């Protein structure tokens, strides 16, 4: 399987992923797939921070919430069109990520995990706080209208939203892919594997770690905004620690140090609960937990590593 062939195959996959659901999937399935993209972006942000950057952060759900609420507030209170909220959500969340990253990253390791965990736990309370109620809609949250397809395209709202989200997602995935291959990506991985050596080589740990953290937040923010638009409302209890944990599971199951892993992970997050409910109506969360532990023992590199191992075997046996 040559380089060109695999690249072609990848393009075919991507085109199929876009077009097949667009024309063959039901409204609900399109909604689920749109959510897959939104979550994939958030998981991708996590992959960048943890898988490539080596920092364990448990607060991605908080950034998702920031992006979601930014989009909602802009649309609700300022009549900003949905597509314009995306870049604003991205920048806002990115800045929040940078601001939080500066102190948090001095800690690293378990302490960072602890702080981001605390962050994620306290988000719903913050969102319900009376002082911000006028903006956030308090406990009830904000309801959003699903946008119609522009330019009179003959697509219904679900189809248009999927196309839109897919396009944004694809652009960001491409950016992430380039980032990882760039000098910045190499620096991140050097910091992850051998922080002392990296520092000795002149890589400023603080700067890269903060940058990575900000980028990861940005991705989650975009995911959150897209997700909010797709779901049609935001409310504080949608963004509990459970969301951060779900994204974490997605990262691990998909494969933390991998771009494509984010996609596997997101598919897992969105579709697994349905399957889990077949097994036992009551405990999809527990099954998530069990799968998480099993992956830690048997496939710490996630599905992506299993796939990569298979591909290597295919190439070797030729």
């Amino acid at each position, binding site marked *: 399987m040559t380089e060109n062939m695999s690249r072609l195959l990848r393009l075919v996959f991507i085109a199929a992923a876009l077009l097949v659901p667009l024309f063959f999937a039901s409204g609900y399935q399109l909604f689920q797939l749109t959510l897959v993209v939104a979550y994939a972006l958030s998981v991708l942000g996590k992959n960048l921070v943890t898988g490539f950057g080596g920092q364990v952060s448990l607060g991605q759900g908080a950034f998702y919430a920031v992006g979601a609420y930014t989009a909602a507030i802009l649309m609700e209170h300022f009549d900003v069109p949905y597509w314009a909220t995306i870049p604003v959500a991205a920048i806002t969340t990115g800045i929040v990520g940078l601001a939080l990253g500066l102190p948090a990253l001095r*800690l690293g390791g378990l302490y960072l995990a602890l702080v981001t965990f*605390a962050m994620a*736990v306290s988000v719903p309370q913050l969102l319900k706080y009376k002082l911000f109620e006028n903006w956030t809609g308090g406990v009830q949250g904000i309801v959003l209208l699903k946008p119609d397809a522009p330019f009179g395209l003959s697509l219904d709202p679900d189809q248009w939203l999927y196309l839109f989200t897919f396009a944004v997602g694809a652009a960001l995935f491409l950016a992430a892919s380039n980032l990882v291959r760039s000098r910045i990506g190499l620096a991140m991985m050097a910091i992850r594997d051998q922080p002392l050596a990296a520092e000795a080589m002149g890589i400023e740990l603080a700067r890269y770690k903060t940058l990575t953290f900000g980028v990861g937040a940005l991705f989650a923010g975009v995911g959150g905004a897209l997700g909010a638009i797709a779901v049609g409302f935001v409310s504080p209890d949608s963004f509990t*620690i459970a969301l951060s944990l779900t994204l974490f*599971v997605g990262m691990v199951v998909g494969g933390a140090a991998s771009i494509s892993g984010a996609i596997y992970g997101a598919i897992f997050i969105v579709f697994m609960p349905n399957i889990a409910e077949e097994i036992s109506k009551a405990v999809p*969360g527990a099954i998530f*937990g*069990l799968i998480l*532990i099993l992956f830690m023992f048997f496939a710490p590199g996630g599905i992506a590593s299993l796939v990569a191992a298979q591909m290597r075997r295919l190439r070797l046996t030729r």
Partner: protein
Amino acid sequence: MEGFLHQIISGIATGSIYASISLALVMIFLATHQINFAQGEMAMFSTYIALTLIQGGVPYWAAFVITLVVSFVAGIILQRTVLEPLARAPILASVGAFLGLLLIFNNIAGWMFTYSLQPFPSPFGAGAPILGGLLSRHELGSTAVTLLVLIAVWAFFRFTKLGLAVRGAAYNPVSSRLVGVPVARMLALGWGLAAAIGAIAGMMVAPIVFLDPNMMGGVLLYAFAGALLGGITSPLGAVVGGVLMGVIENIAGAYIVGTELKLTTALVIIVVVLVVKPTGLFGKSLASRV
């Protein structure tokens, strides 16, 4: 002024519950350099076991003791099966395992016992505030219990041979093995103790906040803050930090930010401690080998 005093005393009462969980966290951190994110859920699950026993007709203190034993054993089993194999794994793996346990305990509790709030009995009586209106009977009782537990744990580590061995295994596993201490078993013992302590904390806090699967979320956060505030390498610090957090919670809630931002308060304390003095009030920096 009396209101202020009441807040402080009441804060000490809740603080001692936080202190128990902080102590459990510090014990596990000292022994394994891992943070037990699932500590709260384990305690919650133990409390449900106690409730089930009590509802089944078992008298309170018998149920209490049975729950302790079950939790102790469960802690040992967890350490041996899930955590020992991951002891040398990268942070991501062990954090993942803890989060997995968190999810499992939380969801299974919700499935087995439903998510609705349930009252949990207090063995000290639900009577009106005593001591001049400063403390409820339960607050006084639970403070006494947690204090007793903390003293017992301290005595165990300080005066018994087994406690010495557990400390040795935590501080210097290699040298411990050289003198014949079965380190793996000691770590498991430490985990069993932590689980039992958590169970006590859960049973003391449940009468106050009512029992539901998410009961320990806030408690855990405050316990984290307390452990960091006191110094995550110091058991004494854990206790002091936990009690302080109880007081801070009440003071901040009554006079500064209101009762709706309790979790944010804990977050702020955590961040402040880590930025200003990461080793906390009593902790020592752990030198890491280069």
